[in-house]
């Protein structure tokens, strides 16, 4: 007997129970603690915070665990939570020039004020699987040279700017700064909205686009002017007080790309900039973001456009992985009403096609 599909509710509940079971896995093993995730899978946590646009290590770790390690699912969880939080103000712009630096490198100068500081990097490690990490061997403490926090090293872009060799930091027209989480997006987008979109954009997507510019699809002749990772103070202006209230520190990665520029009718030949800033430690993302930012400025700088990474609407409307995953995965939802309509059309068109063939056949036979 035919029974229409019922019991969706029960099926969903059962599926969720099974998910919870699988997520926990073998009960003989201890459950992984959020503190362990925060401490030992820190870069995964950083990525969830960056693309989830919410700086909270604990929540990001929770999301990562709830998502069974699925990055995009974790990012989605954090975003969906973030959107419900009430907004009580906008912080002052963070001052990365006063960063408490843990890593700082420049590819453009051999030595520079403040020096090169490698920090905790994978660079120059040999990518050999290390069996000793399978266990829990004692690891000696890292050493940190004392950096004078009172006079932090100047940014490379500032050094170049003294000679006028690099364009000025962009300024925002008027005092309104876009907020892509609160205003509808519209193209062309200002650089403020663009940088916000890139900052939460998918690392893999931006990486691929950045790579494409290096391979010739919209070359921008970049140099890694400076990459710095460390903590910066977040401060909030409170109307009743005449000083900014410090809210705490966040770890960020900043990348300033310096790009060759031949000059235009309006601007003299000088270096231009691409900018990348992300929560946590992620050089790959910050560098990719800086390359994409610069590519998207091609039109503004009067350069030839046409490469994928230079197409603002293409890049920005497809870089959000929460949107992308939702729409790709929505194909799992039932579409049988539409499919029925198409089925009917194809059947009808096939009938017409067959009838025509038969007529042609008959005519041929008659002719013979």
């Amino acid at each position: 007997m035919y029974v229409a599909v019922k019991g969706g509710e029960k099926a969903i509940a059962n599926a969720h129970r099974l998910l919870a079971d699988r997520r926990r896995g073998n009960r003989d093993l201890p459950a992984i603690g959020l503190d362990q995730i925060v401490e030992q899978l820190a870069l995964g946590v950083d990525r969830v915070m960056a693309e989830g646009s919410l700086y909270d290590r604990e929540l990001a770790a929770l999301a990562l665990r709830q998502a069974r390690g699925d990055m995009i699912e974790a990012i989605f969880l954090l975003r969906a939570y973030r959107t419900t939080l009430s907004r009580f103000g906008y912080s002052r712009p963070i001052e990365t020039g006063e960063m408490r630096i843990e890593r700082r490198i420049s590819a453009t100068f051999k030595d520079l004020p403040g020096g090169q500081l490698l920090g905790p990097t994978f660079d120059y490690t040999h990518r050999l699987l290390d069996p000793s990490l399978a266990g829990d061997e004692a690891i000696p403490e890292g050493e940190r040279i004392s950096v004078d926090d009172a006079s932090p090293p100047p940014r490379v872009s500032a050094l170049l700017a003294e000679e006028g060799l690099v364009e000025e930091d962009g300024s925002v027209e008027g005092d309104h700064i876009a907020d892509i989480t609160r205003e509808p997006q519209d193209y062309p987008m200002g650089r403020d909205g663009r940088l916000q979109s890139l900052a939460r954009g998918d690392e893999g997507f931006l990486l691929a686009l950045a790579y494409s510019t290096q391979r010739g699809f919209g070359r921008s002749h970049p140099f890694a002017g400076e990459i710095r990772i460390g903590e910066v103070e977040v401060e909030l202006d409170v109307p009743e007080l005449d000083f900014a209230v410090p809210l705490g520190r966040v770890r960020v990665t900043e990348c300033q790309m310096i790009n060759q520029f031949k000059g235009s009718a309006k601007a003299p030949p000088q270096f231009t900039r691409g900018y990348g800033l992300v929560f946590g430690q992620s050089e790959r993302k910050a560098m990719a973001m800086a390359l994409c930012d610069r590519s998207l400025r091609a039109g503004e700088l009067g350069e030839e456009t046409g490469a994928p990474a230079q197409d603002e609407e293409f890049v920005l409307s497809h870089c959000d992985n929460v949107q992308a995953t939702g729409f790709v995965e929505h194909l799992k939802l039932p579409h049988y009403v539409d499919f029925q309509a198409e089925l009917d059309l194809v059947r009808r068109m096939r009938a017409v096609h067959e009838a025509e063939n038969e007529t042609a056949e008959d005519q041929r036979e008659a002719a013979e």
Partner: protein
Amino acid sequence: MTGEPFYNFAYLDEQTKRMIRRAILKAIAIPGYQVPFASREMPMPYGWGTGGVQVTAAIIGRDDVLKVIDQGADDTTNAVSIRAFFQKVTNVAVTTDTGAATIIQTRHRIPEHPLIDGQIIVYQVPIPEPLRFLEPRETETRTMHALEEYGLMHVKLYEDIARHGEIATTYAYPVKVEGRYVMDPSPTPKFDNPKMHMSPALQLFGAGRERRIYAIPPYSDVVSLDFDDHPFTVQRFDKPCALCGGDDVYLDEVIMDDRGTRMFVCSDTAHCDGRRSEGHVGKQAAVEEARR
């Protein structure tokens, strides 16, 4: 973080609801025009009805009675999930009875039971731009709407006729609203297009991922695009519903076994149930009754 105590009535904060209601009012004032709005992340994925959910969340009140359907049915998993979400965050009454609902959120169908004055139907929209697959650029399509440049739309219909002898668009069939904006009715089958014309109900369309809201106010002129000599027609099924015997309804094809036996039944499950409880019996239902 278990949910309830954290969230406002209908999930969204009041400021966000006001922003969405402003967009809805603008949409009603300019029928068929896609109003950009600052879509929020919702606790379900983009593409799974976040636009419709935001519209419903912005307009729902404690006295509303909500019906949620997907593919015409109240019991498909996504309909169940969205209904459960609203029950959780609003605690409003829910129903499967089209006539009893004040708000109907839908994906891919318009109920068979005619909508009435005072009802609101909320459509979930994946791609709001009817010109999208002819012109991928948002900047360009917005200009085309502004300047009422819709020639390209007819080029597509022309190609269909030249190639297939008929307009081969079966769902998401474009309409013109109040003689001005060309609009995508969401991926409803074109069978449902005539129901939009002069409907006494308010029709709201929400596209979350694409951040657009649009509307058809009650009693608006909604015309499906066509040619004078190739007028718009809807699908006709050559048999009635096998369960309730209903004619002039949209049917789902159900595969009964691996020998190609098929049965056609109402896609609108509430409509089908209603008819059967009134004593209407279709062919298959009669066979099964006799067997018992």
